[in-house]
């Protein structure tokens, strides 16, 4: 027999002013199963809580209903109080007679009766409450970081430095990402490689970090604290243990004219190559699409010259399995390439290049050793036109958003050009200058005031080639939108930042949501910027939205902090308000018929198949099973289940049906 205690709160005047609390307490006392009913001025105060604790002990109550404010306000308070008195906290419910009653109605019998209804409803519910124990999920204290750009590097180092293991997966032969391609960085103009390469080396040498370069995530299963990752280590055609990175093979390789990815197509590389001198790991890889041996079946020159016999032509991809507790996505971004700008002749004229290509031109390690020389004829350009918003903020080209980094790097490019070609004339076509950030506006001003970069407010309409010059047709909207033509030697388009090609496929592999541009979605735009909707998977850097280096690094450290917090305890403790599938004694085992409609409706992939087998091991039936680590307790499956075999703790069928009945059937408790 249930022994429920009802505790009606005045909340000072807040409730008692419009609700006759004495009447409520009296009425509650008459409800079948209520063993104790009192009212008090402030239930949430210490004496109030003490009152409840004592009652629990003295009247050995089996359930508690506190008729006061919203459970969103004080449920934790009163459940804690119950727990302290030795009553399972999940046997305590709150009847919201303040927000949902006293505050929204005038003082009247109707209002008091409604308060009574609410109390009766919750009493009915609490009678059916079950003692629940918090769920404990073990945590594998190893993090998987996908993407070895600056964000991935930062996240890996930060996590590794908290003493936890990190597996870093990079799809290119070397880590470093786009930052390694940059010449200088705004707003300080310090050399990108100088600040990046030490971090790359640190990653390589860190005892807690396992680096898999030239590898990609094959699949990810499991849930927060307990993921199982399968990583494809692509064949380098090389025994990494034997290779000492002397680079002889790359020198001797007869195939030399392959456009270098690292130099954004402005430089050439051999078929067996190390992307760039400071690469980590500093081991070559054979590009099988272009290697003579793989194409024609002969050559093997690299094999002959290799002093350590490290070349392995017959090497195959390798699948590595790893258990990880958390995942950080740091897959970065790309810039828009190709023939999407016919009016600018981008992709048609050699001397119209994009931002990354300019970075390579300006970089001391670049194909021109840092001299600004235009691709077509190697001449030093006298006039350079920089076009901002080339594809960004341009619905007609399918990209409505602002790429954010272009304003700054364009100012930087114009500056660098001016620093290298003193007599040169840099012009920037812009729509707005978005220089929000520490020292950013000052940086842009410097470009204009000290380096004499000419800013023209307007969008370029067309670019065409005439006698070796690029004719740029623009207009200055600050001069009555007067059209103007500039004869340029080189044009740099700040093409839009976009998500990486593989972004969508990866998102689907790991079950995180993404926006219509394939940037990954954070769990909350303001308050949960590094989490995803999938517990245990975090975001770092430009895979979430276009970002500059400081932002990417900050978010990476944020994600690392989240991972560290997750790894700080051995077990995850979660509220047990989750779905459970009915289990019965043999021969029924479960009323579940195994239609798995629940599985289709679950937003968290929390529903698994369980095979029930007899002693002889033969299959009796396959039923649904809820993974307590993944279930978030929305209950969608519950409403959907045809045989009502799945139920949700805290909001079970029994509880809610009894609530409805109690609410509508005023017993003799009514006044």
């Amino acid at each position: 027999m249930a022994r429920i205690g009802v505790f009606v709160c005045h909340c000072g005047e807040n409730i008692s002013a419009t609700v006759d609390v004495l009447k409520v307490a009296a009425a509650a006392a008459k409800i079948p199963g209520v063993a104790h009913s009192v009212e008090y001025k402030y239930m949430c105060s210490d004496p109030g809580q003490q009152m409840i604790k004592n009652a629990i002990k003295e009247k050995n109550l089996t359930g508690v209903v506190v008729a006061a404010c919203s459970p969103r306000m004080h449920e934790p308070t009163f459940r804690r109080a119950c727990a302290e008195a030795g009553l399972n906290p999940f046997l305590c419910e709150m009847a919201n007679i303040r927000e949902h009653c006293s505050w929204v109605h005038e003082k009247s019998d109707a209002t008091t009766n409604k308060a009574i209804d609410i109390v009766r409803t919750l009493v009915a519910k609490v009678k059916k409450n079950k003692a629940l124990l918090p769920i404990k999920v073990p945590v594998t204290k190893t993090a998987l970081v996908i993407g070895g750009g600056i964000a991935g590097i930062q996240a890996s180092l930060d996590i590794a430095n908290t003493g936890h293991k990190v597996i870093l997966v990079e799809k290119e032969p070397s880590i470093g990402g786009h930052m390694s391609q940059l010449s200088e960085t705004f707003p300080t103009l310090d050399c990108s490689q100088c600040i990046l390469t030490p971090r790359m080396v640190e990653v390589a040498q860190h005892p807690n970090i396992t680096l898999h370069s030239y590898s990609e995530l094959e699949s990810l299963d499991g849930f927060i604290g307990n993921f199982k990752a399968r990583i494809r280590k692509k064949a380098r055609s090389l025994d990494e243990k034997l290779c000492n990175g002397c680079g002889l093979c790359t020198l001797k390789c007869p195939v030399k004219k392959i456009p270098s990815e690292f130099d954004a197509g402005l430089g050439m590389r051999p078929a067996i190559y190390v992307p760039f001198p400071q690469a980590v790991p500093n081991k070559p890889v054979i590009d099988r699409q272009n290697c003579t041996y793989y194409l024609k079946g002969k050559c093997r020159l690299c094999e002959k010259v290799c002093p350590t016999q490290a070349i392995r032509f017959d090497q195959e991809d390798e699948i590595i399995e790893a258990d990880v507790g958390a995942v950080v996505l740091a897959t970065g971004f790309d810039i828009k390439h190709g023939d999407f700008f016919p009016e600018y002749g981008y992709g048609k004229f050699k001397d119209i290049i994009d931002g990354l290509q300019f970075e390579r031109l300006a970089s001391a390690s670049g194909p021109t050793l840092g001299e600004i020389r235009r691709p077509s004829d190697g001449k030093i350009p006298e006039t350079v036109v920089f076009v901002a918003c080339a594809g960004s903020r341009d619905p007609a080209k399918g990209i409505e958003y602002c790429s954010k980094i272009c304003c700054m790097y364009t100012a930087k490019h114009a500056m660098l050009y001016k620093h290298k070609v003193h007599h040169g004339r840099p012009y920037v076509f812009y729509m707005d200058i978005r220089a929000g950030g520490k020292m950013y506006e000052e940086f842009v001003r410097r470009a204009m005031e000290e380096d004499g970069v000419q800013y023209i407010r307007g969008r370029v309409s067309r670019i065409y080639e005439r006698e070796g010059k690029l004719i740029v047709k623009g207009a200055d909207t600050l001069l009555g939108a007067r059209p103007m033509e500039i004869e340029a030697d080189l044009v740099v388009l700040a093409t839009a930042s976009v998500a990486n090609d593989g972004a969508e496929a990866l998102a689907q592999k790991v079950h995180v949501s993404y926006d219509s541009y394939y940037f990954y979605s954070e769990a909350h735009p303001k308050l949960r910027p590094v989490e995803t909707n999938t517990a245990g998977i975090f975001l770092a850097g430009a895979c979430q939205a276009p970002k500059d280096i400081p932002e990417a690094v900050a978010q990476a450290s944020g994600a690392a902090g989240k991972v560290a917090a997750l790894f700080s305890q051995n077990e995850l403790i979660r509220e047990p308000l989750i779905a459970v599938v009915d289990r019965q004694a043999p021969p029924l085992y479960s009323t579940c018929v195994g239609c798995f409609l629940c599985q289709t409706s679950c937003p968290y992939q929390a529903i698994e198949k369980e095979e029930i087998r007899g002693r002889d091991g033969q299959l009796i039936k396959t039923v649904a099973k809820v993974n307590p680590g993944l279930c978030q307790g929305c209950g969608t499956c519950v409403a959907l289940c045809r045989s009502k075999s799945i139920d949700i703790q805290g909001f079970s069928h029994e509880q809610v049906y009894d609530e409805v009945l109690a609410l509508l059937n005023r017993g003799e408790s009514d006044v």
Partner: protein
Amino acid sequence: MRSDHDVQHCRQTLADLVLEKTGVDVARCYQCGKCSAGCPLAVDMDFPPSQIMHLLQLSDFPEFSELALRSHTIWLCLTCQVCYARCPMELDIPKLMDALRAESLRLQKVNPKARDILAFHRAFLDSIRYTGRLFEMGQVVDYKLRSRHFLQDLLQAPGMFLKGKLHFLPERIRSRSLLGRMFSRTLKVKEKRP
């Protein structure tokens, strides 16, 4: 897109009218200037296309809508469609220009500089109105009478005639009466000749 709410609560501006007639929402224009940059005649215009857009954006100030309606621009527009083809917001500026021309005519605010252009259009239309097809000779003569540029083209006409490009008699189609009706129904508004 301006909401219906706004439209009904403030008196109809020129921008609203354009939106209603052409579906072009000038609020979407963010003044990048690409249209002006590409317009072959922007230099000859009193207001390049992007400025016309901005005049419309501010058209709840009567003086600004006035400037747009009295502008030379709307008559210089060749409908070459370059602006529309390149507009990042895909705003149909040529269509908008048509609407402005119509409104400018209706309110008799045609820019005096557009006199010749309008004269030509009228001559052209009258020629079709009465014959069904363009009668170049007749049209040119008519145009000269309206524009009073009697000597212009005199050098070319004989040459064209010799090359058999000009006829002295117009071709007439059978359903001229229908065309007459079509014209009188569509060109109801009687404007003063420029």
